[in-house]
């Protein structure tokens, strides 16, 4: 047997499982891919075979069949569904188990076992309760490959109830107008809507056309979102006093002119920092993230208690420093091509 963990090989474009000839979340097309969740920076199309949870596969199918990508070859050639808790045997004697990551619908950590060594790759994850997906499960392992999107101690996400309170009082203060919430089309938007319902807001919520299908997909998977309407089907007057949800990339000035004097809100972990919010012209920052904040990242490393921590994408420097201060072995993998902006 070769050096410990040499069967796992990080590249800038994905993590290779050498004996299986497979890759985790590769950003280029490969023969065999294990995909953690449906966000475009983890789940690209065009692989020969895609192994993911049924929800993630459904999301990928929706995105790549409905013109979200222009890539003709983007439809997964062969889709292999794996349920949470299910283990599949890959080539070369590698077992892969999909475990909930709590990030978005269908998101998974992947536990890899080979030659008596256990490696967990988290994909993206969070520890907070989320009515739209299964909660993160702590899985003991030797190597813990963690994300670090919010890997700076300034990032502490407040309880989501606080942020919903902010959103609802802004709506109350602007009864003739509206509140436009920028939220990533997969995951964040549905979570915000579900949390609004849980907070007792049952009025119709208006959607930008780009997120309609994803909301329907969530509903088909049992996530209740209440009455949703499309902005395009309604007049300014209809939308007075309403919440409107749109992807951040679609929140252009020209598009939002059709809304009744909107207050611009953004649901994102980056909203913790005033400068980030102001840069984007946000009037109502909502600190809501589907990623682990600093305390969740460090607590999780403590709970998983691995022999080694590998840090993938995000602000790995600070998390490396934390590991150093806490006498934990760690290294940064510097995967490229991972987005940060709208998370």
């Amino acid at each position, binding site marked *: 047997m070769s050096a410990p963990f040499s069967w796992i090989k990080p590249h800038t474009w994905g993590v290779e499982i050498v004996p299986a000839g497979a890759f985790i979340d590769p950003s280029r097309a490969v023969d065999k891919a294990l995909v953690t969740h449906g966000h475009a920076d983890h789940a690209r199309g065009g692989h020969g075979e895609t192994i993911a949870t049924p929800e993630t596969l459904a999301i990928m199918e929706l995105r790549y069949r409905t013109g979200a990508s222009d890539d003709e070859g983007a439809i997964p050639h062969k889709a292999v569904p794996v349920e949470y808790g299910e283990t599949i045997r890959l080539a070369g004697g590698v077992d892969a188990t999909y475990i909930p990551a709590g990030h978005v619908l269908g998101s998974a950590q992947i536990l890899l076992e080979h030659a008596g060594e256990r490696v967990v790759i988290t994909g993206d994850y969070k520890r907070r309760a989320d009515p739209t997906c299964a909660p993160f499960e702590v899985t003991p392992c030797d190597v813990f490959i963690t994300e670090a999107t919010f890997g*700076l*101690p*300034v990032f*502490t996400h407040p309880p989501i109830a606080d942020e919903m309170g902010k959103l609802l009082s802004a709506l109350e203060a602007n009864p003739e107008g509206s509140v436009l919430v920028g939220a990533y089309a997969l995951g964040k938007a549905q979570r915000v809507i579900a949390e609004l319902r849980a907070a007792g807001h049952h009025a119709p919520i208006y959607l930008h056309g780009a997120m309609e299908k994803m909301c329907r997909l969530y509903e088909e998977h049992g996530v209740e979102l209440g009455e949703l309407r499309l902005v395009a089907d309604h007049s300014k007057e209809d939308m007075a006093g309403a919440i409107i949800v749109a992807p951040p990339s679609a929140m252009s*000035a*020209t598009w*939002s*002119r059709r809304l009744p004097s909107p207050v611009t809100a953004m649901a994102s972990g980056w909203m*913790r*920092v*005033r*400068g980030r*919010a*102001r840069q984007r*012209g*946000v*009037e*109502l*920052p909502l600190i809501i993230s589907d990623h682990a904040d600093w305390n969740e990242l460090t607590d999780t490393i403590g709970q998983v208690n691995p022999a080694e921590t590998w840090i993938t994408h995000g*602000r790995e*420097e*600070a998390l490396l*420093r*934390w590991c150093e*201060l806490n006498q934990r072995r760690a290294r940064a993998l510097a995967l490229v091509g991972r987005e940060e902006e709208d998370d």
Partner: protein
Amino acid sequence: MKAFATLLDTLVYTTSRNRKLALIAEYLRETPDPDRGWALGALTGELDFPAVKSSTIRNLMKDRVDPVLWTLSRDFVGDTAETASLLWPQDTDPQDDPPSVSEVIDLLSGLNRNTAPKELPKLLDRLDANGRFALIKLATGGMRIGVSARLAKTAFSQAFDVSVEEVEEYWHALEPPYTELFQWAADGADPPDVSNRPMFRPFMLAHPLEETKVNLKDYAAEWKWDGIRVQLVRVGGETRLYSRSGDDISVTFPELLDVLPIDAVLDGELLVRGTSQGGEAGGAASFNALQQRLGRKTVSKKMLAQAPAFVRLYDALILEGQDLREREWQRRRDTLESIVPKLPDSHFDLSALVEARDFDHLAEIREGARDDAIEGLMLKRRDAPYIAGRKVGLWYKWKRDPLLIDCVLMYAQRGSGKRSSFYSDYTFGCWDGDPDQGAELLPVGKAYSGFTDAELKKIDKLVRQTTLNRFGPVREVERTLVFEVAFDSVHSSKRHKSGLAMRFPRIHRIRWDKPVHEADRIEALRALVRG
């Protein structure tokens, strides 16, 4: 402190001026004394706690956060106060309630450099992240939240439905927490007594004359000078100079501070002496020369010798303790004429009246005025008292007809407030030669007014359709649109590539019809330079 912290946090994200005013006004109405007064002092930048510096905060953090993590965080956030507020170890079960604003002020005022590092942590422990941000901003000064002193005062006047001019008048004589100001505005007490302070009195302002004609029996005419409006105040031997907005600009013009021999409040135009033109009233340089002296904190001897300032007086508000503002203009003018001979002519002269047979004759005189220091005429109602602000029918300004030139739209920038979704600020240029022979456009000015909302929409659409490049909020556009630009004057300027700078440029007409190669050349603009 919670309400103040929420106010600050909300103001940070609010771009609309009206929303800012409403937020501050609501806070001032709902917060008790003296908290609201201290908050107002903080917003207007009048509080100072020398014991707490940005370095005090950095040192506190050094003891609590790993230096590497601090630096990484500070670099990402970009603001020391904010980083510290986020990284301060949150006390999940604070022993004491959050402090009130006045409690914070009391504690901060009592600090010195030795006690600050011991006392500040106790305060920080009692607050949440927003509260800590507010506390650190308050203690280290410099809010930088996009609220000017003027905006805060306007919010005060809106909160209690009093005139902003009156607020200005008392403001400069009072100090935080402005208890007397709140008693007067909110509780109907007598206004504060401010007679013994060298303070600013709000100016009487003029409306544009537009289409009106006035009878010269009722109105006196004066030249309108192209300088800066100032108020010179001397009380008990102490002299101050205020700008139009009520800012104390005494340090910028030290030569005017010990030359007024009597206690008085005088209204006039500040000009600098120059040789570029004579003019019948004598010896003023162009505005361009005056501009060299504006905004300076220290003034060199050379500057004082080259461009000495003087005040051309046109009104007297208070003279030797007597308030003349209730009196009609003619009586104030008589008083002014009687005192000007007693003032040193090196630093003062009288703004002469313009005599005309009738209005048409006056129009002729206005057309004939060639002095570069003259911007036009002022018409003042002879029986009007001196009333702060802009009251219709009392004073008119009648500017010289603007100069016009055809320019080409080159860049557009997004506006602010209700125009924030529109490209409403336009940079335009003139040709540096024959456009048919490959000449290029050089920017000559920028304007954001003079068009209707409908025209704005149309230009905005054109900008979006013809964008060549984007630079943040600015778009470079294809050269397709001609503006007829109006401006008051044009001067040589080293700051611009074209070598020219316009005064008060605004869009006069949009020439949708005109081909861009027929726009004017730089030479045409240069020929209009005077002085």
